[in-house]
């Protein structure tokens, strides 16, 4: 019989030192999103090609002239993506020419006209940053806030009300007041779902969806002919807000880029600091990671539900206030093209990390903005961007597909994140 050696029992299990693998962790985290975006671009390329009239007319003759068809497909896709890129990041030749003209003649009109496109990508990204953060905060706290769209409407209505009802304030009071109104309205509207979950255990997914409908219809009523917020323009919209409540533009016309973008980036840093550096953030993340352990640790779980929803809603409200005070300057019925719903995809793409959300929002903003140019130059419908976004999300949500395509190894540890416990809970 083998004699037992007298060594210590529990030798520390060999695990790689954590610091050394930090970079590899970051790389691992980025692999799937980057490959997902890449794959989505390829698949969308085929969709663009096979919906183009030039390609479709050549299709019946494929067997006689296969290379003609492939060439046409290639041309279509390249033209479309080139237009997309130019729309998203600007025409750098035009920018350079405008710059030279400005130096030579002192006339900056062409320069700012050329700068409109790249800055428009940031303008488009701004509401995505706010709404993406709103959903991400919910996810971190284990809540699925589908009501961001409705909370965005609430925020826009409230800041519009402050914007057009109060006259004569200096901008440094009026603007913060209007922003605050938007923030609070969003927080309260989301907070309702939080309170219902905390006190009655009602699922926040269902609740926020219902609250969306209420807010949409409430908006319709406010702007209807006999509605209290209807303006005099004869269309379903509110009066215009006073300029003292405008979020100021950074550059002259026609660049619409305004200070809301910096507000959004500030929100990214704030959310990061709040979630990871404060006790309340610790409580939110604990509740999100394990509600039972949170309860055991003495955290008032119900209070945290309300707080998380409130924080999420205030970010959504700011998204609405930002759009209203920075761009539209009045409230209309179809105020948002669905920022609050795209935000769910954004938060997933950004893995619920504030900086991940920022990066994803910049990407979505660039895609949205570039799509307009793609439509005008390459006659590819703007909707292809929705397809592209959907594909990115599909690949992110099913990383197995991406791993299978690129023959990647399965991660060694279970790295799946629990995004929300709302489903079926």
């Amino acid at each position: 019989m083998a004699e037992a050696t007298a060594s210590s029992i529990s030798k520390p299990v060999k695990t790689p030192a954590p610091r050394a693998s930090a970079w590899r962790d970051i790389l691992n985290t980025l692999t799937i999103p980057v490959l997902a975006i890449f794959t989505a671009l390829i698949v969308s390329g085929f969709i663009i090609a096979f919906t183009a009239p030039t390609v479709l007319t050549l299709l019946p003759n494929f067997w006689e002239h296969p290379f003609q068809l492939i060439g046409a497909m290639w041309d279509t896709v390249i033209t479309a993506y080139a237009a997309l890129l130019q729309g998203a990041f600007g025409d750098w030749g035009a920018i350079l020419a405008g710059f030279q003209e400005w130096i030579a003649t002192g006339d900056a009109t062409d320069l700012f006209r050329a700068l409109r496109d790249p800055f428009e990508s940031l303008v488009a990204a701004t509401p995505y940053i706010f709404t993406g953060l709103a959903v991400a905060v919910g996810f971190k706290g284990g809540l699925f806030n589908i009501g961001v769209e409705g909370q965005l409407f609430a925020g826009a209505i409230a800041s519009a009300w402050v914007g057009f009802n109060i006259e004569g304030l200096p901008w440094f009071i009026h603007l913060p007041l209007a922003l605050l109104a938007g923030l609070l309205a969003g927080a309260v509207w989301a907070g309702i779902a939080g309170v219902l979950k905390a006190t009655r255990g009602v699922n926040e997914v269902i609740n926020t969806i219902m609250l969306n409908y209420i807010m949409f219809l409430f908006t319709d009523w406010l702007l209807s002919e006999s509605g209290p917020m209807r303006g005099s323009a004869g269309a379903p919209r509110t009066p215009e807000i006073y300029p003292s409540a405008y979020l100021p533009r950074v550059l002259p016309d026609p660049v619409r880029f305004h200070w809301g973008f910096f507000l959004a980036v500030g929100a990214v840093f704030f959310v990061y600091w709040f979630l990871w550096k404060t006790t309340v953030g610790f409580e939110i993340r604990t509740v999100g990671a394990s509600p039972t352990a949170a309860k055991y640790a003495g955290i008032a779980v119900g209070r945290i539900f309300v707080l998380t929803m409130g924080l999420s809603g205030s970010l959504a409200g700011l998204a609405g206030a930002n759009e209203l005070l920075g761009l539209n300057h009045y409230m209309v019925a179809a105020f948002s093209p669905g920022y609050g719903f795209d935000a769910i995809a954004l938060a997933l793409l950004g893995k619920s990390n504030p900086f991940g959300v920022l990066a994803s929002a910049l990407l979505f903003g660039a895609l949205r903005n570039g799509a307009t140019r793609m439509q005008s130059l390459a006659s590819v419908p703007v909707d292809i961007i929705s397809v592209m976004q959907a594909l990115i999300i599909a690949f992110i949500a099913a990383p197995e597909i991406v791993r299978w395509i690129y023959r990647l190894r399965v991660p060694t540890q279970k790295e799946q994140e629990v995004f929300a416990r709302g489903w079926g809970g």
Partner: protein
Amino acid sequence: MPPILELRGITKRFPGVLANDHIDLTLNQGEIHALLGENGAGKTTLMNVLYGLYHPDEGEIMVRDKPIRITSPRDAIAQGIGMVHQHFMLIPVFTVTENVMLGDESITNGVVLDRKKVAGEIRELSTKYGLEVNPTLYIKDISVGIQQRVEIIKLLYRKADILILDEPTAVLTPQEADDLFQVLRNLKARGNSIIFITHKLREVLALADRITVLRLGKVVGSTEPKNTNSAELARMMVGRSVILSVDKEAAKPKDVVLNVQNLVVRDERHSIAINDVSFQVRAGEVLGIAGVQGNGQTELAQALTGLRHVESGRVTVLGHETTHATPRQLFELDVAHVPEDRQQDGLVMSFPVEDNLVLNEYYRPPFAKGIVLNFDEIEKAAAERVREFDVRTPSIFVKTANLSGGNQQKVIVAREFTGPIKLLIASQPTRGLDVGSIEYIHKRIVEKRDAGAAVLLVSNELDEIMSLSDRIAVMYKGQIIDTVNAAETTKEALGLLMAGVHGDGKTPALQPQTPEQKAETHHQ
């Protein structure tokens, strides 16, 4: 005669861990082979390889002298290999018959389940092996011991003759364990071969024909019960001499710390789980709560720690009213709690070790200033606690899920035992841990007792209760059936109490209620 099952050089690697390192094992027909080892020694990994749940990196499996590949439990069953898992795979709202036929249904007329035929087969198997089971009962209505029999019948019904039992006695009373051993001996007599996984030395010596000891993924040695004793087996398992009993002096109880009066608590299904329970725990003593799993111990610990609503009755800690206190209020009264389910309640598995080490205390100085966390202080305290409590972790930034079970529990103990605790409520503090960790945690509990803490110990391990407690209260069907002096009782006496029979073996299970108590129950 060739062995019925042979494992040759089985090797299984996980990232950073060699779970099985060239393991050889032979199982002869008609023998009970005990696989002994601490948690984390690689027993379960090895059996999962054999059962097709893991694929070995190296090595081969021979069944009846033929090399075979097992890639799923279905393959294993086809080779006659069956496994009873530690956690039963039964559906509570199905009958015994339905559970047995699940996945292998007997069908008449193409679509209709033939329950009668299966029930008949179950009765046959029952009588053949002494496995008394009524096939028409629902799983939820039968005891854990009988449920285990159903699991065994499931395997026999599928014609398995190589049976693997993973820690089968963990959920049983000592008497039920003895019954199980009898069943296993019957199975052996009929030519079945059994692999019995355990970390309990007593069982190995009582039951096994041969014993193979695993440590750190390697076979340390094989032996037979007649050639060895528990001290030697323990040394093989752990790699050094182990003190099998806890070294402690007689308790010197002082003032009452925890006072529980007429406690009534309901479980998830709103039925009464704790029915009119009263007891006291004094400073400097350990009160053990013994009982078969599911007799209200879990609910008792939850109710006393603010995790479960108290229906009626009164609880005080050092004179403070705590009947409806929140976990945080209790924490601030210096009550420490080692929860029963460490992964669910005690830890946030996705958080780094340092966060878990301050999970109850993060909100107050020095760890927080206002609402801002002070990470310097948190890291300092975490490093200190890791050192003091010998938590084996590469660093305090590692995800807690990556630690072994024993080290996870040490994280909880390090957190809860720091500071001047007045009352310790420890629920299953060593469940699933290795001998080394058990020894360590027991020592710490006795230390806290001697430092003047009142300790309430809830455990399903009778050995643990007996070696740590000064007094033992036995719970049966939500009531304390009796409280005995630990020094004067025996395992047999406790076993009878756990089964609801009073010490003399004659009195009925439950004491008749006094008129006052009756009146109180009716009030609710």
